[in-house]
């Protein structure tokens, strides 16, 4: 439970370096914290601010980890103990509870206020909306309050997110809720996939973390390709939908030179040519990059045969250098429950393989790189296709069957 001091003068200690962050036009977190401390008299927050001032003076951090959790779960609370509790006893404990928000970070004020009410009762009053992975982070609670706080939140329908060697909280773009580009119901997929993995979110049973992000289209507004082990990106198979009248209106408005220099020359595969003063799209050359659609959203839209591409292995640079996800499932339609079950089934097989194969602290992308993409795909029962590579190998160092004998279709 938060401790409070009521004497207005004592609510804040001097934090001269931090105070410099109250200047400037961007919202100041320091001003926010000070306002709150002044209002609440929350001593944990005061202690944290004092320790932060000390960090600014000494240019060093003073938190260490530990083990704090809720009944039955092995993850979801990031525990923080001050390394200098004698100096800042009020900051002795400052644990964070990671709460999973709804897909797309949508809230009703009713539900959000409910969280705030509980947090006001148990916590520091600080929160982070949102963490980079996608959690609503309730920052600053002591060990004794964690369980009660969680129970109250849980009663209201909230649950903890992942941490450590678990499936992590997912993230998704605004998707079909407000975006005309969305090629599948990314929010529903997010909801279903992450619900399925709830057990793996709460209990560390994996070699390392596993993250999911969902983007409605290749614009990838959820940054899935680099920030998620499993990136689910909407796409389409048939032709770009073109509204001829709107194309003409665009050209009338902007001119042919604008069209050439901003649309035609920017297509990555030269799939668009100038024909009779307008554009012709060779859809079989189109790589679904979105650019022409982005520039002309009234005139062009994704095709009608829609689904997702699954890219696996995105992550930060630890150990092997930054990794972008690689295509492992080029296309999966995503129209109903069956399709989502299918996606879950595929990911399940991938996770099973990884759980068996990975070294400690090895993300699936690193593991695939070490073991080889084909070995991974075969073990996960996924057909290898040419869409999974940018190009075939450029070295002859492989071991085919001795009796490999390709069947060449005679053409022409």
């Amino acid at each position, binding site marked *: 439970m938060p401790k409070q001091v009521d004497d207005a003068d004592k609510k804040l200690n001097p934090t001269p370096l931090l105070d410099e962050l109250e200047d400037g036009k961007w*919202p100041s977190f320091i001003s926010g914290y000070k306002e709150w401390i002044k209002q609440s008299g929350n001593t944990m927050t005061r202690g944290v601010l004092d320790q932060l001032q000390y960090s600014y003076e000494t240019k060093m951090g003073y*938190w260490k980890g530990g083990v704090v959790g809720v009944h039955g779960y092995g993850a979801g609370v990031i525990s923080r103990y001050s390394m200098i509790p004698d100096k800042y006893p009020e900051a002795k404990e400052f644990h964070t509870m990671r709460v999973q928000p709804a897909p797309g970070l949508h809230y009703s004020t009713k539900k959000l*206020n409910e969280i705030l009410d509980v947090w006001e009762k148990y916590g520091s009053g600080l929160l982070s909306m949102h963490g980079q992975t996608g959690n609503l982070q309730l920052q600053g609670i002591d060990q004794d309050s964690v*369980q009660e706080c969680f129970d109250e939140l849980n009663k209201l329908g909230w649950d903890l997110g992942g941490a450590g060697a678990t499936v992590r909280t997912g993230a998704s773009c605004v998707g079909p809720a407000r975006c005309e580009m969305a090629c599948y119901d990314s929010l529903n997929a997010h909801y279903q996939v992450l619900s399925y993995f709830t057990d793996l979110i709460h209990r560390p049973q994996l070699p390392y973390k596993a993250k999911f992000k969902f983007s409605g289209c290749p614009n990838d507004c959820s940054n899935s390709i680099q920030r998620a082990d499993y990136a689910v990106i909407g796409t389409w198979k048939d032709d770009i939908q073109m509204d001829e009248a709107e194309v003409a209106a665009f050209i009338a408005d902007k001119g042919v030179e604008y069209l050439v220099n901003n649309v035609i020359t920017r297509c990555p595969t030269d799939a668009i040519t100038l024909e009779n003063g307008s554009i012709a799209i060779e859809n079989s050359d189109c790589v679904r990059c979105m650019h022409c659609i982005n520039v002309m959203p009234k005139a062009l839209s994704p095709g009608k045969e829609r689904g997702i591409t699954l890219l696996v292995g995105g992550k930060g640079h630890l*150990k092997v250098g930054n990794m972008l996800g690689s295509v492992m499932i080029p296309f999966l339609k995503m129209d109903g429950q069956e399709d989502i079950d299918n996606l879950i089934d595929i990911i399940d097989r991938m996770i099973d393989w990884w759980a068996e194969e990975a070294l400690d602290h090895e993300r699936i992308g690193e593991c695939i790189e070490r073991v080889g993409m084909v070995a991974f795909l075969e073990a996960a029962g996924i057909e290898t296709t040419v869409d999974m590579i940018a190009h075939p190998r450029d070295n002859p160092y492989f071991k085919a069957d001795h009796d490999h004998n390709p069947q060449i279709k005679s053409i022409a």
Partner: protein
Amino acid sequence: MQKRTYQTQESGLPHHMEMLHPVSRKNYGQWKYHERPRPGVLKHVAHGGDILYTVRAGTHRQVTIPIVRRLCKLADKYADGHLRWTVRNNVEFMTPNEANIAPLISELEALGHPVGGTGPSVSAIAHTQGWLHCDIPATDASGVAKSVMDALYDDFVKEEMPNRVRLATSCCEINCGGQADIAIVVQHTRPPRINHNILKDICEMPSTVARCPVAAIRPTTVNGKPSLMVVEEKCIYCGACFGACPAMEINHPEHSKFAVWVGGKNSNARSKPSNMRLVCHGLANNPPRWPEVTQVLKNILSAYKNGGKDWERLGEWIDRIGWKRFFEETGLPFDKYMIDNYRHARTSFNQSAHIRF
């Protein structure tokens, strides 16, 4: 703690439908196109004709109960009791009612929330925990973020960049901020010092040894007890061992510096997504305002703003003008450390006669 009687509902994440604005729910998946009436405002039009306006505003991300309550109040007043956050910590209010836009913007601005971040603007910087909460930070993330965004305020509220610009900052080399058009990341410049006093008590030695990407950590004996040593010639100062064992003290008030990275791109628009690349390092970790870091960002953004063509992301602008001109036009010094010597170094060599003079 009282005896617990409540039985946890392992409910997982809440469903989104109840969270959505009613117009959004009604036109779910039925959107036709969008326009941007002004910076910070989007207008989405549904196939059925419904219109939904969105107002986007910057926040501190590290917020408090009163801040969020105030935002909820605005949502109640102007956005039918719904609001959302973007992946970049901006808050969004939706309304079918055009008349709500102006007063909502005024109130947001009055509360100190800048309205912007849409279209070709610099949106809010993605940042991390820092000294405020993390156990391995070499700097404070929120402070850097605030300092940077103060300097780029105008670029947030206007749409005057060639294309959208995403920034990130991270408080250790691990880079929880993820990649971005421009990322500011702590860079260590020396091997960890080993704190032998605590190592023996807290270190899971085999897993610390295993964490090192270049096998620079070796078992040894210190004062007759098993301990660890770092082969300094091998160590690449990555800090991975510190995450495994707090005795591997990688952070240093002077020698943990900042590096700046550019050209990270996650979207598939035009060019394939690309990794961000190192363009500056050795910048002082200088709280509370980090002026050196801010200067570098301003240089890069002003050069990009001047030189980029419409729709060119920062990395694509560089792909066109070349890295040499990037360094010239941003005033940043290129140096030999930027030439890769890690695992896939060869793939970064210029294996062509393509050169700009």
